[in-house]
């Protein structure tokens, strides 16, 4: 099992989410974060005060995958989050020792598969096939 943490542009989030769902990764946790990468600074003006915004708004997505899903997950993020400009973000992959589902007490791989994983994945693939953006 691996914990995959990725930092992406907020405006790429719909594409990343759709790609992850199509790859069968349906359990994800989002947070809004601010970060400093290699991007150019942004300037804001308030009357006499000029502010240099050194931190840029990003979205952090965390998901835990069983081994067969790790590579598809990484590929899904790479294909959907990349714009080619500085600031596209990062993917971090770390080992996970144990996973426990609170509702049932299931552990590890049994705890990782969402009950509606197949339905979510099917819907995402259908949406993509019909030309839907999400």
């Amino acid at each position, binding site marked *: 099992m691996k914990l995959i943490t990725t930092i992406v542009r907020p405006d790429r989030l719909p594409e990343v989410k759709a790609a992850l769902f199509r790859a069968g990764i349906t359990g994800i946790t989002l947070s809004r974060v601010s970060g400093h990468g290699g991007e150019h600074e942004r300037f804001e003006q308030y009357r006499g005060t000029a502010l240099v915004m050194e931190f840029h708004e990003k979205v952090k997505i965390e998901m835990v995958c069983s081994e067969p899903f790790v590579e598809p997950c990484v590929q899904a993020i790479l294909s959907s989050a990349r714009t080619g400009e500085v600031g596209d973000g990062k993917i971090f992959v770390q080992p996970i020792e144990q996973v426990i589902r609170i509702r049932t*007490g*299931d552990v590890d791989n049994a705890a990782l598969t969402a009950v509606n994983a197949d339905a979510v994945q099917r819907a995402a693939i259908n949406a993509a096939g019909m030309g839907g953006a999400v």
Partner: protein
Amino acid sequence: MTQATVSSGDTAWVLVSSAFVLLMTVGLAFFYGGLVRPKNALNTMMMSMVALGVVGVQWMLVGYSIAFSPGNSWLGGLSWLGLQNVGLEPNPTYSSTIPLQAHAMFQGMFAIITPALISGAIVERMRFRGYIVFLVLWATLIYDPLAHWVWGSGGWLLKRGALDFAGGTVVHISAGVSALVAAWFLGPRRDYRRVPIAPHNVPLVLLGAGLLWFGWFGFNAGSALAANGLAALAFVNTNTAAAAALVTWAGLDLLRTGKITAVGVATGLVVGLVGITPAAGYVTPMAALLIGAIAAGISYTAIQIRSRTKLDDALDVFSCHGVAGIAGALLTGVFATKIVNPAGGDGLLAGNAAQIGVQLLAVLATVALAALGTLGILALIQATIGARADVPEEIAGLDLSQHGEEAYFGTDLGGLAGTGTSLGGSVVVEAFVEAAPVPAPEPAV
């Protein structure tokens, strides 16, 4: 006029204008509140809102009497304390067509907003109790005498022929100069120029600026104290100057930074309104256009200079009200003409250069009284109950430290996690969902 009669039209307009000016103080609360940081939003808005109460009471009890009742050339008398002897009959000294009580209420709204304007310079660092004492003392010792000098029967600046239609000296210069002194006396916020300090809610600033513009029609056009041609002139001039200043400010923004900012537009329109206030009933609309544009240019420059100094006039009250107010007062001496208002005066362009001297005298007298008075009042407060918030109070934010409230409670995990527990006993919050029993785990695959 010996036998004065009440005009229903004039009275209706002045009463409505009074309500307009009251709304300006609420607008000011939004304008200032949006410009500070979230942890000080309530305190900043309260500095305006509480003036509605404190100065409203002060005005009724003593303020109106000191400012307007018959007295000498420096102070009014005490015969109108508690609004006694202020009746429903017109008083020809001030207006022969509206009840004197309507005049008292209209003027009271001016007395309320003026000290509230000062608060913008001292936000995020003044103790609220000290501020309330400041409100009472400033209104009584500075605003009321000044209003008497300029508008009161027998006031010495009135006798000199100083032109101040709706309060350029009494309201804006006095507030602006006092703001400068107060900002200097209290010292900068502890993190001023160390961390970026940006407005936390620009939409609130725009809402406030809009309410100020709306209310200013009562402020200026209402100062005609009648529903007549003079009121219409003041209305037109008010709108013209605000619009010209907005356009000028936006143009300067564009030149300097390449973008037109919302805070800039809001500031610019207010500056135009400040600039036209002393001139509104004395100049032509074309002159109003120029006054608005000039006031915006000067004020814009003043803000750029101020922001490079250590002087923490946090919301630039001096640059907006003091500088633009002085510009407006002097420009009144340039553009005033009896063609538009025979009861007014002629300025430089109408061949009366001496008017500028009179205007300058009024400005200097206002600056002196406001600066020295504010310094004395703040020194007294600092020596007794304390004016400046201490470091922990400032770090926690004045909303929590002064009011025990938060503007945006529950917007972070604190609200979600239920960190609060009711102390009163009347509100009982209990967990309404029992934790479900954990089923026996199925064997792992």
